[in-house]
C-alpha cells in the first residue's frame, strides 16, 4: 500500500508519461559544452554536421515506427502544433484565396481540442466545418462519414486513438473513402503511435500528428507526417529560415529531437510486450471492480487500446471520487473543477447521460505500472465507491427503485 509520504500511484499515462531513462540519457549528450550542442543548420563546421546527423537518425527512427519515408517527417513542438499546421496548412492552401477546391472540412465531436479549436478558428475565417457524432461506442460510422463528403470537402481530420476512451478509429477504411475523392486525410496519432501498428505505406493517410511525451519522450516535441506520394502541399504557419523544407521554420531542438527518436525506437521494440502488459493490467483492474453495481465501461472495449480504460461508477460524482482517490493519479471526465461544470464533451458526444459522464474515471496505464499498483488501485476504488455511495441520495433513490430519469430536477 501507498504510505502517506509516497507520491500517488501514477495512472495517467494518457496525459503524459515519464521519460524513459534511456531517452533522458541520450538527450543529455546534446546539450553541454562537451556534448553535441551544435545547430543542425550550420553547414560550415563539424558541430553542425554532427547535430544534423543525429537529427536525421531520429527522423529515421520516427519514420520507421510508422513505415514512412524519413523525408515525410517534419519536426514540430508537439501534436498540438502538428494539428494546427496540418489543418490550417491544408485549409489555407486549398481553400484560401488561390484555392479553388473548396472550404468544407469534416471532423468529429470527440477529437482533441487541438483539432476542434483549430476548426473553430477556421470557421471564423469563413470555412465550413461538419462535426460528426460518434456512435455510442465512440466509433465513427463510415457510412455516416461518407454521406457528409462533398465536392467542396478539402479535408477530413479524424483521430486514431481517442485520448479519453482509447477507442481505435478505422483510419485505413476512412483513407480509402477520402483518397478515392481526392480529399486530404489528417490523423491525430498522439495516442496511437507505439500502441497500435501504423503502416503508412498501406494506409491512405496524408498527414499524421505525433507527440513525443505520450510515449516516454520529452514534452514540447512532436512531428507531422506529410505524404510525398501523392504529394501533399500545405501553407506554412511559422515563417523564418525555411527549415523543414519551408513547412516549419525555427532552429531544430537537437536534444528534443534525439529524445523523440529514441522514444520511438524503444516504442517499436516494446510495442507488443507493452500492449500485452497493459491488457493484462487493464483486465486485472476491471476484474477487481466490475462486481460493484452500476459500473459502466465507456467506449468500445474490443476496438480500443488496453492502456486507456474509462469507466463510470453511477451515482458517484467524479470530482469527489478523484478526491477520495488521492493516492491514485487518475483523470475524471467531470470538469467540475472549471467554472463551467460541464461533464466531458467526449462522453456527452457518446450520448452518455450527465450522471454517468460526471461519474467517469480514466485510468491510463503504462510501461512502469505494476500488478501491485493495480491491486492497490482496486482497494482504493472500492473503498471510495462504497464511501461515496453511502453519502449519495441518488444511490438511495436507485436502491428504492426510483427511476431518476423521471424525477423533475431543477437545474441550477
Amino acid at each position, binding site marked *: 500500500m501507498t504510505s502517506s509520504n509516497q507520491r500517488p500511484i501514477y495512472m495517467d499515462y494518457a496525459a503524459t508519461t515519464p521519460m524513459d531513462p534511456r531517452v533522458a540519457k541520450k538527450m543529455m549528450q546534446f546539450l553541454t559544452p562537451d556534448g553535441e550542442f551544435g545547430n543542425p543548420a550550420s553547414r560550415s563546421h563539424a558541430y553542425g554536421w554532427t547535430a544534423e546527423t543525429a537529427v536525421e537518425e531520429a527522423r529515421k527512427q520516427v519514420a520507421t515506427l510508422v513505415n514512412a519515408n524519413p523525408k515525410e517527417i517534419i519536426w514540430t513542438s508537439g501534436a498540438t502544433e502538428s494539428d494546427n499546421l496540418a489543418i490550417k496548412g491544408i485549409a489555407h492552401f486549398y481553400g484560401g484565396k488561390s484555392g479553388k477546391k473548396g472550404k468544407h472540412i469534416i471532423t468529429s465531436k470527440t477529437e482533441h481540442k487541438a483539432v476542434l479549436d483549430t476548426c473553430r478558428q477556421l470557421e471564423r475565417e469563413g470555412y465550413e466545418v461538419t462535426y460528426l457524432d460518434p456512435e455510442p461506442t465512440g466509433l465513427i460510422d463510415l457510412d455516416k462519414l461518407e454521406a457528409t463528403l462533398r465536392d467542396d470537402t478539402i479535408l477530413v481530420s479524424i483521430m486514431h486513438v481517442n485520448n479519453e476512451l482509447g477507442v481505435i478509429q478505422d483510419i485505413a477504411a476512412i483513407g480509402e473513402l477520402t483518397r478515392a475523392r481526392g480529399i486530404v486525410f489528417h490523423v491525430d496519432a498522439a495516442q496511437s503511435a507505439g500502441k497500435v501498428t501504423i503502416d503508412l505505406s498501406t494506409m491512405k493517410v496524408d498527414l499524421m500528428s505525433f507527440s513525443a511525451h505520450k510515449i516516454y519522450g520529452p514534452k514540447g516535441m512532436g512531428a507531422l507526417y506529410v505524404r510525398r506520394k501523392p504529394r501533399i502541399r500545405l501553407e506554412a504557419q511559422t515563417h523564418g529560415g525555411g527549415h523543414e523544407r519551408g513547412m516549419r521554420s525555427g532552429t531544430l531542438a537537437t536534444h528534443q529531437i534525439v529524445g523523440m527518436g529514441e522514444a520511438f525506437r524503444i516504442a517499436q521494440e516494446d510495442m507488443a510486450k507493452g500492449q500485452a502488459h497493459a491488457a493484462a493490467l487493464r483486465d486485472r483492474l476491471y476484474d477487481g471492480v466490475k462486481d460493484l453495481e452500476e459500473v459502466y465501461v465507456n467506449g468500445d472495449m474490443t476496438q480500443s487500446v488496453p492502456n486507456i480504460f474509462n469507466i463510470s461508477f453511477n*451515482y*458517484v*460524482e*467524479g*470530482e*469527489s471520487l478523484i*478526491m477520495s482517490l488521492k493516492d491514485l493519479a487518475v483523470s475524471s471526465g*467531470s470538469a*467540475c*473543477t*472549471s*467554472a463551467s*461544470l460541464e*461533464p466531458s464533451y467526449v462522453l456527452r458526444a457518446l450520448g452518455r*447521460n*450527465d*450522471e454517468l459522464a*460526471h461519474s467517469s474515471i480514466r485510468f491510463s496505464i503504462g510501461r512502469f505500472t505494476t500488478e501491485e499498483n493495480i491491486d492497490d488501485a482496486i482497494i482504493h476504488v472500492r473503498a471510495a465507491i462504497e464511501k461515496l455511495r*453511502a*453519502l*449519495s*441520495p*441518488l*444511490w*438511495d*433513490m436507485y436502491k*428504492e427503485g*426510483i427511476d*431518476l430519469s*423521471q*424525477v*423533475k*430536477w*431543477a*437545474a*441550477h
Partner: protein
Amino acid sequence: MAYSDKVLDHYEHPRNVGTLEKDDPSVGTGMVGAPACGDVMRLQIKVSDDGIIEEARFKTYGCGSAIASSSLLTEWVKGKTLEEAGQIKNTDLAEELALPPVKIHCSVLAEDAIKAAIEDFRGKADNADGSDNAKNPGKAA
C-alpha cells in the same frame, strides 16, 4: 484543486450523514440540485413541538465542497429555531469553509436545501389534518 483544511475535514469525516423518515410529520426534507449539474443535496430536519431543530441529516451527491457545505450546515442548524435556520446565508458557509469562487454555488445549494426542508416541514404542519402530504422524494426545490 486545493481544498481548505475545513473542507477536507468535513469531506473525510462528514457529520450527520443519514436519513430521517420522510413521512414523519415532524421531519422536513429538502432535495435540491440536479444530477446533470453534478450535485444533488438532500437535507432533512426533525423539528420538536416547540419549533427547534433537534436532528439534521444529509446525503449529498457532488464534489468535496458540496459535501462539506451540507455537512457543515447540519452542524449549524441543530438546536436552532426554524426562523434562525432559515437565516443562514450561503456566504457564511462559504466563508467558514474558505470556498474558492468556482465553488460558491455549493454553498448556495446548501442554503437552498435548508430553505426547502423548512418549507417542506411547514407545508406538512399546515396540512396536518390527516391529508397525505408526503412529498415526492425527488421533488427538487
